[in-house]
């Protein structure tokens, strides 16, 4: 039986997570009388998950090396303030208000600032040997304070119009045609990548999945992509905004109105791109191999000639860069930079990684799992809001689920040993 599952490359942990997510979704839909599994709610859920999911990608790498980063929420707040001031106060004076390049400069500045902070903290951890818990606990206070300092606590708003699209909303989606195009390209890419990997293993004479399982997995993945595209395209832009869009395009608003679909939200596409890029980094590069080797046995990695200190610093740098991207998404979504942005995010990000199967003992974790973990947590919160559960009770439930998820994981790991 075990051999058979091994041959299928069946991942019971991923299957369990998907099962739990399905149970949560169906449960909330039942309890809310069909209000949960609507295109609108699912679309909003995906947008609300994006920022945490982006940071969770980096947190997996950090935790895999047996470290922790408690400063991600504060970094997000600080970077958000920097790019808020940059695009609302500095750039309008230098290049003019609503300049087409504003959003690009802001995004690059966010990634660079985040990466610089991450590399700095990583250097303290790797080269000076200060525990990451302490360095990033200090960072939590420092960057939160620094975020206040940028404007003496003032909120910066509004932000650049093009930049706002990064955060989602009616204008922050790619529309119907592009959504179908992305879905088709994604399916083709999945099929091609799976086919290539299988053929390569076969050319070396390694065992591969049976053909039926290979095709079943491929079809399931493509069905998920097509389903997501269908849901995103079933969510209509509200009539008021739709009318403005039609009139801006030079058309006239018909009496019965028109159906304009949202399509995939831009922040969700950014999160998925970040997930794919980080997964590639973790599984296909030397850097990723060293990250996991350090997590499994730091001494062994050193004896094998791996520069463990440099790798560790780069891990924190990657985490910082991802915080910069998340800062763009969350500031754009609010259309404002506030010094309180990202408060408690560090806990949600760590929880997402851990629910997603990342072991705090190091060496084990997947990006996809962490992103699913972020979705599970956001689903719980959104569902409880739909049901009108009080905010304090929401925290109680999320906290309980975190502990329960890790307990199940511990039991599961013992089971496979």
């Amino acid at each position, binding site marked *: 039986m075990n051999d058979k599952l091994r041959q299928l490359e069946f991942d019971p942990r991923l299957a369990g997570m998907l099962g739990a997510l399905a149970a949560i979704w169906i449960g909330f839909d039942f309890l809310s009388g069909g209000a949960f599994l609507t295109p609108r709610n699912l679309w909003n859920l995906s947008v609300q998950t994006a920022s945490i999911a982006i940071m969770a990608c980096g947190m997996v790498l950090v935790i895999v090396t047996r470290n922790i980063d408690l400063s991600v929420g504060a970094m997000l707040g600080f970077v958000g303030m920097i790019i808020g001031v940059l695009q609302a106060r500095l750039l309008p004076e230098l290049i003019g208000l609503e300049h087409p390049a504003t959003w690009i400069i802001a995004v690059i500045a966010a990634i660079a600032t985040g990466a610089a902070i991450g590399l700095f903290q990583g250097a303290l951890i790797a080269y000076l040997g200060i525990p990451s818990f302490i360095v990033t606990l200090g960072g939590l206070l420092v960057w939160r304070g620094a975020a206040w300092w940028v404007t003496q606590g003032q909120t910066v708003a509004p932000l650049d119009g093009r930049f706002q699209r990064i955060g989602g909303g009616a204008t922050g989606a790619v529309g119907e045609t592009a959504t179908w195009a992305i879905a088709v390209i994604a399916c083709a890419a999945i099929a091609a990548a799976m086919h290539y990997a299988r053929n*390569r*293993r076969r*050319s*070396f004479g*390694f065992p591969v999945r049976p053909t039926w399982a290979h095709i079943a997995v491929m079809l399931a993945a493509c069905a998920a992509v097509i389903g997501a595209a269908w849901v995103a395209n079933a969510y209509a832009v509200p009539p008021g905004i739709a009318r403005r869009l039609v009139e801006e395009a030079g058309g006239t608003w018909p009496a019965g109105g028109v159906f304009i679909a949202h399509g995939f939200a831009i922040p969700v596409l950014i999160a998925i791109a970040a997930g794919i890029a980080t997964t590639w980094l973790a*599984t*296909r*590069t*030397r850097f*990723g*191999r060293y990250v*996991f*080797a350090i*997590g*499994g*046995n730091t*001494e*062994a*990695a*050193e*004896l*094998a*000639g*791996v520069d463990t200190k440099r790798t560790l610093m780069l891990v924190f740098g990657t985490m910082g860069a991802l915080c910069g991207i998340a800062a763009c998404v969350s500031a754009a979504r609010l259309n404002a930079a506030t010094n309180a942005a990202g408060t408690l995010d560090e806990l949600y990000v760590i929880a997402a990684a851990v629910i997603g199967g990342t072991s705090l003992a190091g*060496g*084990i974790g997947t990006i996809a799992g962490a992103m699913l973990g972020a979705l599970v947590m956001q689903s719980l919160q959104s569902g409880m809001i739909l049901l009108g559960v009080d905010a304090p009770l929401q925290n109680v439930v999320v906290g309980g689920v975190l502990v329960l998820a890790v307990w199940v994981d511990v039991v599961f790991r013992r089971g496979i040993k």
Partner: protein
Amino acid sequence: MKPKLVEMRDVSIAFGGIKAVDRVSVDLDEGEVVALLGHNGAGKSTLIKILSGAYRADSGEIRVRGETVDIASPRDAKRYGIETIYQTLALADNVDAAANVFLGRERTTRWGTLDDATMEAETRKVMARLNPHFRRFTEPVRALSGGQRQSVAIARAIYFDARVLIMDEPTAALGPAETRQVGDLVGELKRQGIGIFLISHDIHDVFDLADRVAVMKNGRLVGTARVGDVTKDEVLGMIILGKCPPGAEPGPGAEA
């Protein structure tokens, strides 16, 4: 005269004032097996960690084929063809056999990404020689038995054309059948001209495999001897009492 394959001369290292290795000199020829013996804490492992680049000697000289070399890191040691199988095996438990064999020396594709398929194929080839029954190539090495893990560690050492092999307590964790396998392997590598340092605290493990023995006590070299010139009991006397028998060449650590 042909230079020795490896020569360590008057090597010393201290940790916090305690001389873990004190002016020790040992050498090794091609195709020769030298057993480094001594109690736990005698300084054997520390001495070989200097040769493998894990520690840096405070003083002394290391020569490889007559040339003085500076070994500052494990990477340097590997560049001179010095490979080490540590007592702890030094495996990353959470990744598979191929990832461990190639750790730090990964094969990459022309785009600079990891070439896992080639690495797995090469690992399968070298493992077929070492342990023909080994099948679990895609699982983390944590799931493997002690002997299988040992095979992975050995594969890592010999795959990259080692000229000098250091084996630290190679049979300590193994059953009789696996111990015999390691013995056969030592013989085969010796025939290929590889010089081997065998580290052990148990003389019975290594006496039949070694050409020479070097005995350490309290960080100092008691003496070296050809296996044919001394008896097991005499070597035991060197290990326990630090007494150098007539057939051995005394070192600075020999009791008067």
